[in-house]
């Protein structure tokens, strides 16, 4: 039963992380930008839900309101900063988004204060297997909402005009431009969509966990790892690697102790990268 509990906890956690990683993979693939401020956008989204909660609105509405506001924040950020670094090398974009991350942290600290806060959803608890397995409904809700948003996004990317333009730009920005795609607009929309996804995730995090102005970085690192493990441009891979990492984390926590939780995830990352390299080198030999 313990393993079922750990598995389910991990999957629910993983789905939420996968949503953030999904946004990161999207803009990394399209714009070749590693967004260090990803986690801070998440936290900002969380604060939007939190303030709705403070004003007596149920924080679950945050998953609708927060992405709308965050989309415009994202587009604004693109117009102000990101458009100047989008064609430069990766290092410049990391520096720029790192700067944005620091700025966001300080601004949120200034505006919202340094208290750790959370929004209570009032959702109950689900008991399974004779109440041996306990799942907070807020976690189930977050996983459910994350999946819906992910599916909607995949459909949107496949069917809409903007979605096609985004995919074309990801494949070859120059060719897309020649064929009449307004890449500038595509970039802005991509960054906005990423920020909106962060907004959804943030609202869910304020319902399931806690938020604090300086808590963004762990989310950035986690989503970065998920994308690395999945490989760029591999969106189903992101979902699987997100859940896999979540489950792995819970088991590592349970078996080795909480202090080795983060460490074991990093160890896994190293092993996967080494394995990839090993596979790649074999392939090369075969081709010879």
């Amino acid at each position, binding site marked *: 039963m313990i393993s079922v509990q750990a598995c389910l*906890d991990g999957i629910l956690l993983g789905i939420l992380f996968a949503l953030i990683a999904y946004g990161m993979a999207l803009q990394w693939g399209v714009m070749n930008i590693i967004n260090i401020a990803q986690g801070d956008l998440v936290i900002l989204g969380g604060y939007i839900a939190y303030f709705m909660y403070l004003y007596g609105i149920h924080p679950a509405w945050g998953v609708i309101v927060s992405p709308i506001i965050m989309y415009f924040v994202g587009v604004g950020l693109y117009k102000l900063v990101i458009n100047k670094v989008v064609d430069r090398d990766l290092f410049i974009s990391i520096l720029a988004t790192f700067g944005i991350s620091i700025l966001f942290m300080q601004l949120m600290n200034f505006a919202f204060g340094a208290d*750790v806060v959370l929004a209570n959803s009032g959702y109950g608890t689900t008991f399974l297997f004779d109440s041996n397995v306990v799942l907070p409904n807020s976690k189930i809700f977050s996983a459910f909402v994350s999946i819906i948003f992910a599916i909607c996004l995949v459909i949107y990317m496949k069917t809409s005009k903007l979605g096609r333009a985004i995919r074309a730009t990801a494949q070859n920005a120059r060719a897309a431009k020649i064929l009449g795609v307004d890449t500038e607009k595509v970039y802005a929309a991509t960054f906005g969509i990423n920020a909106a996804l962060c907004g959804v995730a943030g609202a869910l995090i304020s319902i399931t966990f806690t938020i604090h102005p300086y808590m963004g970085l762990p989310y950035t690192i986690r989503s970065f790892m998920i994308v690395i493990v999945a490989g760029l441009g591999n969106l189903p891979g992101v979902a699987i690697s997100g859940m896999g990492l979540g489950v792995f984390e819970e088991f590592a926590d349970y078996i080795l102790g909480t202090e080795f939780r983060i460490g074991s995830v990093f160890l896994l990352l190293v092993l996967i990268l080494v394995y990839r390299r090993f596979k790649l080198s074999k392939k090369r030999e075969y081709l010879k």
Partner: protein
Amino acid sequence: MKIRNFIITFVSAIALLLSTATISFAKVVGDKIVLGAAVSLTGKYSSNGVHTQNGYNMAVDRINSMGGIKVGGKTYKFEIIYYDDESNPKRAAQLAERLISQDGVEFMLGPYSSGLTKAMAPVTEKYGVPMVEANGASRSLFTKGYKYLFAVLAPANLYLDVAIRTAVELNGGKGVKIAQAFEQDAFSQDVRLGILDAAKDTGSEIIIDDKLPKELNDMAATLVKVKQMKPDVLVVSGHTKGALTAIRQISEMKVDVPMLAMTHCDAAKLSKQHGKNAQYALCASQWHKTLTYKDKWFKDGMTYDADFNKMFGYAPPYQAAESSAALLVFKDAFERANSFDQKKVRDALAATDMQTFYGNIKFAPGGQNVSKPMVLFQVICDSSGKCENKVVAPLKWASAKLIHPVPKWSER
């Protein structure tokens, strides 16, 4: 050219004048004793930094309006120079250096948090500047042999010691099974060491001993273990975030444990953020307004609470109360030393033995206050859902009876 020379001389003369003016301003001048303090007004400790500053200001106001400090037959008033350390240890150390060597401050008040105090103590020690601090509880501060550091609060290893002892007492003197989860930072690890000592003393057994990562947001795995192994006491310490996360997940996962003891419930505003879910949690606190300690300046805890509320518009957390106490200690030491010689004041501080509204204060050779026990309060809610913190241990100060064991979730 002549005019230019004249301007340069003039400007440098004024600059020189101003610089000497600020230096002389910052010592004991006229009727003012100037203290230096770096507190976190921005950054992650800013809420508690502000409580610290408010506590200092409240005491300065009170002492000054009640006749000030009498040294050598003359009356002096307190004044504090503040800087914002941005919650950053490096910045705090720089500011200590600046307060002492540029502003000429000869006596210091502590910053908020163990980490920042740790950064500043070597600097004040180097210059032989006495520092009375009210918000650094880490045990490691008091084992380094610092001579000029004095802390009015009980050290971190005593925070939850009383919870274990109470649990053992309720168990008929037999040892209990303890589950513990502590964040990996200096403070929480010191709290953990205290629990280990208490467990050894009482013959208790530690069956779960988890270290939570700093970015702790999820302790579901620990709680699953707790559900399975059924300890008698669950102890959690991970600052505000730890307290909030623990209550949220314990209530969501319906974890039944006879006693739940934590730190930082005050700062986390547990009963406000979690309402009835926080009920029955035991919280370690340095101070509570219902304690019956008395002094001449603030009378007692209830009066302090009311006065503070009037001045700042919110109820004082213990961080503010202990900060106010630091100034009472300084005043007392100055008067006993009857001098502004740093060495003499330091010796007077070391010999402090007084009661304040915040508690008794007497320093051990390491500089920590050993004569004030920690108190435990329990979050208790009435049927309308209004929750209050009531002191339940030690028995001498208790204003309510400890509810033990905590009712099961299915019966609430």
